[in-house]
């Protein structure tokens, strides 16, 4: 059986370690939120450009950020149903 000194004296955990723990969690979430907003914007802007060339349904689009080692890879799937003939349109 092991009783730590902390338990023996009935001391509360240091408030600085609680602060650090809470910060780590909240900052991870903050960073994800920011990434999320950027990805949503990118998604809209990409779709806007691609819609000039392809026809696709918005809910089939998938976008993901993958980490491989030190670099990130953006993978975007825009399954299209039709390729616009730009020559005809002009």
């Amino acid at each position, binding site marked *: 059986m092991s009783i730590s000194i902390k338990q023996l004296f009935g001391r509360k955990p240091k*408030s*600085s370690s609680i*602060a650090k723990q809470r*910060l780590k969690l909240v*900052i991870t979430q903050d960073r994800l939120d920011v990434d999320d907003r950027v990805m949503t914007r990118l998604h809209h802007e990409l779709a806007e450009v691609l819609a000039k060339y392809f026809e696709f349904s918005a809910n089939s689009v998938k976008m993901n950020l993958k980490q491989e080692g030190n670099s990130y890879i953006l993978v975007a799937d825009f399954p299209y149903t039709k390729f616009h003939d730009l020559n005809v349109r002009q």
Partner: protein
Amino acid sequence: MGKVIVVTSGKGGVGKTTSTANLGTALALLDKTVVVVDADVGLRNLDIVMGLESRIVYTSMDVIEKQCELSKALVRDRRVDGLMLLAASQKNNKDDIQPEQMKAICDKLRTTHDFVLIDSPAGIERGFSNASAGADEAIVVTTPDVSAIRDADRIIGLLQNARIEPINLVINRFSPQLVGNGSMMDQADVLDILNIDLIGIVPEDSEVITSTNRGIPLVYEDASAGAQAYMRIARRLTGQRIPIPDFEQKGLLNNIMNWFKKKK
């Protein structure tokens, strides 16, 4: 070509203006030519913290509106060679200036001075984009508490997106005593969370407040712990390699005292 460094933070009141005033003065004391620029349009403070408030005639707004030449708008600090202040307009607000206009000012100042330090307003809005528009590097100031660190992380993200590099951290109002008794995060904790380079730790120092009252930056009187910390940071900015002292060691006696206090 000089360096343009923006001094910024997410949260207000953590010591950006104090740091800009002291680092600017310290660099001038180290024989560098320096301009400190107040980018806190509408809420200017750098002039009064430096004790130059009675000598402001023109502001960056006048330069932008072509009311005066940039060189004429710079106020010379007579206490040390090579230190100038460019004040912010108090009657305008942050939206009256465009980031490109700030960048143009920085680009000019960089050709004539070794260092351009920009005192940024708090926050992530327009004031931040104006202040950082012309910057090559950044100093992020934070205090070791949860809200300041959280907001610092946000600012670091924005600086990284803007490709401003390096981003160096100053931990301000550090209290060895509070770290010693476990009530304040230490430098390792802060760096573990923010994951950027530390350029210095400035202790909590009542001399900061009295020197601000007088309008005489702390670094002119080099006895205080705060002054010494700012001088060391300034030397590091000039490329000197100076170790960051371990403030916690001094806290040992305090630790013991605090332990007894807690037992009561």
